[in-house]
């Protein structure tokens, strides 16, 4: 029967052609992307762009908000399911949010980076200069993603290729292995990336971004000597200087910025500003500071500019104002990821750990003096480390989860949080692996306590 048709309608062969489609006009096949410098660059720009496109992603206010609640740094003004984070009592109801913003939402970028790295390896259409720079940027971004994954979840699968069939079955890799992987990525990245910005636009990572993150990694690993050394390289760079008025630190391309993310959503500068700031002069902000944190500020601290108060329904509440633009089509603020002040505090802590107390004081006092506070001296090592912790808490208040990660890495989470959070358990230092993911990949196992 079928043969009969074919005789009747001979042009079946040409019909096969009829069914062949070009890719859609607004999309490009992957192979085409890596045939020219412009599109290859666009594939990496897209990573930064996507990081800023959706609020509450790990790279876009998510870490700040949810670890802020989870530690003793932020509260959410009205009751909501975010209270699970405030109470360190994450239930399954919050898992899909954790998945979207912190797990799958982060691995999405790791996939994008791995894909670019693989494609660039075989690409012939991209010039060496561009290729090397993009490879280095991608390695930086990969380390940046893994940094937050391991600090939120502990062991996570170490995905380093774009092959979904392999990746889908990966079990969790120990944190220490991932840290080694990150250090390698960051060192290789720092070796290749340029040290200057183009047009002072601080939105593409440079050598110093890689070094700054590497310094942080080493601080977290307790590799004090290397942390001291690397942070010193960043501090020594003439590209960066502290902004004397704290109110101006978070402006776009501020001299303190080592790496900022470029806002891409219309009418929004940073999502932190957009989400936190109250809509009108008389409405409530969303995220607010706990009074204990506000009360720990010393009287003359110029950083009070970051803690703005308002009377709402006859209560005084404080909310973060590092970013001041709620909505504006004109962009004056970029989203600060890495900044110089952290490098001073990293070096201060590393040196204190290395028992170079006076060097440690001098770095700490750089930050205190910018805040208009008196210099500290003559504390013993333990008190100095506590002073650095407190300084970090204020300097990085509502900024990238520094407070939560500090409490964890110093082992002080239980000591600080147990007294103020009734539901605290020592297993709370890690978030749960989203149960959706456990179902999808039977090689994953859950963290203790969930």
């Amino acid at each position: 029967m079928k043969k009969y048709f074919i005789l009747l309608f001979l042009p079946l062969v040409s019909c096969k052609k009829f069914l062949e489609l070009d890719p859609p006009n607004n999309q490009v096949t992957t192979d085409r992307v890596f045939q020219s410098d412009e599109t290859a660059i666009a594939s990496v720009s897209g990573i930064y762009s996507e990081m800023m496109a959706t609020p509450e992603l790990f790279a876009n206010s998510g870490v700040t908000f949810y670890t802020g609640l989870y530690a003793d740094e932020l509260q959410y003004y009205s009751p909501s399911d975010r209270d699970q984070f405030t109470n360190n009592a994450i239930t399954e109801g919050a898992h899909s949010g954790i998945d979207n913003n912190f797990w799958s939402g982060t691995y999405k970028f790791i996939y994008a980076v791995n894909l670019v790295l693989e494609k660039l390896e075989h690409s012939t259409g991209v010039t060496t200069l561009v290729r090397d720079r993009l490879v280095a940027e991608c390695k930086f971004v990969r380390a940046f993603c893994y940094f937050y994954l391991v600090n939120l979840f502990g062991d996570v699968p170490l995905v380093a290729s774009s092959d979904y069939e392999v990746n889908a079955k990966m079990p969790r890799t120990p944190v220490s292995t991932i840290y080694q992987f990150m250090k390698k990525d960051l060192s290789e990245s720092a070796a290749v990336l340029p040290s200057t910005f183009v047009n002072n636009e601080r939105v593409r990572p440079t050598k110093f971004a890689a070094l700054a993150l590497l310094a942080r990694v080493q601080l977290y690993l307790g590799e004090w000597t290397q942390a001291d050394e690397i942070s010193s390289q960043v501090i020594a760079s003439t590209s960066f200087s502290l902004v004397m008025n704290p109110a101006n630190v978070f402006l776009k391309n501020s001299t303190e910025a080592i790496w900022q993310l470029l806002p891409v959503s219309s009418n929004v500068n940073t999502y932190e500003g957009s989400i936190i700031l109250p809509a009108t002069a008389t409405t409530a902000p969303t995220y607010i500071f706990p009074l204990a944190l506000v009360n720990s500020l010393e009287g003359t601290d110029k950083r009070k500019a970051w803690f703005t108060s308002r009377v709402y329904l006859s209560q005084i509440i404080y909310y973060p104002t590092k970013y001041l633009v709620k909505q504006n089509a004109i962009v004056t603020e970029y989203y600060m990821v890495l900044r110089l002040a952290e490098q001073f505090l990293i070096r201060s802590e590393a040196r204190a750990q290395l028992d170079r107390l006076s060097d440690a004081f001098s770095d700490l006092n750089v930050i205190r003096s910018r805040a208009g506070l008196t210099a500290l001296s003559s504390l013993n090592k333990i008190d100095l480390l506590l002073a650095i912790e407190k300084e970090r808490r204020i300097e990085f208040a509502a900024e990238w989860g520094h407070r939560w990660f500090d409490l964890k890495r110093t082992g002080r989470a239980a000591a600080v949080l147990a007294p103020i959070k009734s539901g605290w358990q020592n297993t709370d230092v890690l978030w749960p692996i989203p149960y959706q993911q456990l179902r999808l990949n039977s090689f994953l196992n859950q963290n203790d306590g969930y």
Partner: protein
Amino acid sequence: MHSVLRTLLLLPAFCFAHFAMGQLISFSVKNEPLQKVFLLIEQQSGYNFIYSAEQLAHAKPITLAVTDESLSSTLSRCFSGQPLRYAIDNKHILVIEKPTPPDRIIKGQVVNESSDPVAGVSVSIKGTNLVTSSDAQGNFELKDAPDMVTLIVSGAEMETVEYALGTSTRPITLKIERRLGVLSETVIKGYYETSRKLNTGTVGIVKSKEIERQPVSNPLAALQGRVTGLFITQSNGVSGSQFSVLIRGRNSLQSGVEPLYVVDGIIFNGEALSQRSSIAVNSPFNTLVPEDIESVQVLKDGDATALYGSRGGNGVILIQTKKGKVSKPQLDVSFSQGWGKVTRTMDYLDTQEYVAMRREAFKNDGITPTVANSPDLFLWDTTRYTNWKKELIGGTTRTSNVQLRYSGGSKLTSYSVSSNYYRESALFPGKFKDERVVVAASLSTRSENNKLQFSLTGNYGSETNDLPIQDASNSIRLQPNAPLPFDGDNKLVWKENGNLFDNPFAYILRTYSSTQDRLTANTWISYMPFSGFSVKASGGINRLNLDETSLTPIASQDPSIAPTGKAAFASNDLHSWIVELQAEYTTTILKDIRIKALAGSSWQSSTTAGTIQAGSGYTSDVLLNTVSGAATVTNTDSYSDYKYHGLFARLELNRKDKLILNLTGRTDGSSRFGPGNRYGNFGAVGVGWIFSDETFFKKLQRIMNFGKFRLSYGITGNDQIGNYQYYDLYSTTRNPFQNLPALRPSRLFNPAYNWEQKYNWDLGFEAGFLKSNILLNVTYFRSVSGNQILQYSLPGQTGFPSILSNFPGKVENKGWEIDITTTNIKRSKFTWRSSFNITIPKNTLLAFPGLETSSYASTYVVGQPVSIRKLYDFIAIDSLTGVYKFRDANRDGSINSNDRTAIRHTLPRFYGGFGNDLSFGNFELSIFFQFVKQDGVDPVIALFLTQGRQQNEPEIILDRWQKPGDVARYQRFSTGSGAAFTAASQAANSTAAITDASYIRLKNASLSYKLPVTWISRAGMRSATLFVQGQNLLTITDYIGADPENQSTSAIPPLRMLSFGARVTF
């Protein structure tokens, strides 16, 4: 005349002569001239023939043997067939030339009770062998008719009738009454037609008459409850809203389940092109006029759908628009005016009840109300009451509909042009409306010798729908003591005493308007080189464009936040064409087996391209309508291409209209699949046996005049998976990066997926009893869809949520479909007909290998329908604490997602409709009910929230737990924390959220009165009818929520419409 006179003159002599003919005659001749025979007769009888040589010039040679016959008998045998007659005068036989036949032609038309032409009826002249049959327009013509004529009209499905025509020569109209009228109705099965009687497949038909009497703007609305196996729901009562259409259940786990729509032979895009709408409006069907529709055919089984191959798997809906008929030109004008209100809503608490609820919630939670936690109680007037339901959706829509149609046709050419204007105002406050203009034209013509036929159909519809940006139902739950929306200066109020107010009228100032234009045009030409063989080429285009504008003016925003305006302009354009070639051959083999063969090829291409420009930062509302007034503009575009090619063939073997075998097959190629997987084969076999026409059944025909078994098996497919799925692609990010484009990976490389396939079995029994006064149609169907294409979820660590792949999952749909129509009373002044249909479907997931370890473990259960929900098993409200309690299924001491083991679904268990049509003199009354047996969601529990928050609740929540020992439907009030909050969020996913949502709805009632011809003929009218029509008039249900059909608290239910109008034919 002359001959008649002569006959009369000769008559007495003729009578007299009779007596003289006593002699007997015998002879035998073979092929002899007539003269020779005359001689023989003269010799034996003694009579003389009187004739001239010229008279016999046209006489035929004669072969005759007579033995002892009388003269008169012998003569009559001799003259039989000769152009002569004779008269006997004394002993003379006068030979008289017969007058030249007057060439009498009898012309006429065969029509049925409703004056529609009937084809294929045999018309013969009694006492002759003159016979013909009526053509497609019902016309017939008989030549060489004798002087006195009695016509015998007969056909397979009618009583044989005789018409005494006498000597009249005027064209006549023969009105016949079909014994099985319905059975000879045309059934269109896409590329070919058959009749209901001979159909081997399962096809549901809705005719224009049923559609016309429903005051609806969307033709899909008119099909609800009328066809077995077709389940249609309206999610929203807003004019222009979309309908969900499902034929015989969900076949696919994830791919599209919409049927294929074909309008006048062109694939019709039924999906809205909307890119911005927050209310699901812009159904492309809204640009089709229900009154323009001649018939809708719903193809359901494999036999009927296999010719559509890969796209037939979800069923096919064929819509035929009205064409011109052979008739005098006529102008039909109809106009109507209607009103609509929401059908069924819930009542909400008044302020007193609301305040009491809030206080009780605080008391239950052990919280003291303060200005901070309950500004609504402290800062707002707790005695003020606004019934937001009434304010926001309590309005009335007004509809106007005007339809003009001019049509007619001669034997060779027929035409029809029509235009329609429809307007419906929205029932929200403000000046919103939906307006539609449609023009349609059709022309068909054929050559004198019937060899060439040509047809052109064009249909252009344009609809503009102005609406608020969101359904005002969204604001019904505002606190009843909220401020009045406008202040003394008629300005929007944003807060009162420092407490913000989410003013619903702000959303009404934000507008959404859309303009939808659709052009559908189709031509075909067919040529019949010799009888029985014809070729046909057809081509059509379908263009659909949707422009959308959503505006957020500064005036609609709280001035204290120094707002700027926002606007979005979206345009989406669908362009598709189709070209088809086909050849058909009809012949007869082995004496009585009629063969119809068809083969064809189809090419289709469809391109969709869309853009969205979103502007923000407008500093003035005046500039809001232009994108150039925006401070920043974001552009998005989308594009997709779809190509399709099919080869199809059909072979029908028909033995004496009793046994029919129908084979169909199709090879399809679709661009949606990767290279190597593009082609798939589909096909079906259908058998029909009309056993009532077999001789052994003759005796029973008095009771059961028609009986048929049909059986079909077919394989169809589904390619509704979206385009380009096999490409690995990067697409641009929404916003550029540093003014340069940025790209993100948008799809994994994946060439390895293939067609979904559906195997259909159908077994049908059709019968007509008591001269078809009772018609019964029972169908059992079963289909299994395999090779399911799933977005197979990937672990997040792969960077992609899912990948498309085939899965050996199997979905079964089976069930019974029963249709009964009866003619209860039939008198000349009074008729009463009834109809009833019911569908009992069952959907089952037959197999899903590896389900337990897949990402679908919580979604599907083998042996259960595919749209189940796994739920917490609700036990009761804890009589001590007053919160919902659930069964700890795994007994691990806590209630978490592992305890969701109870299985429920909200699929219809059965559905259908029943109606009665009565006509009494000039009045006609039609009443139609639709019914659905199903479960639905409890509107309170499904919300995930506790009752007692700062939002209003339906009055049904008053049935709540208040104190230990209470038994109630709902748990205790709570402002939303603690155990009550957790319980509320679990309850939404529990069996407590499922409740009965069955209903019986008076879908349609219409009454019409036909004005007597004597009243109107002076005004030049041929007919005039006044009518009242109502839709969704009454709903009988135990459903606890608002409307059991859309079960929504944030979308208005389908409207109850009432309309008055008139239909006039000139």
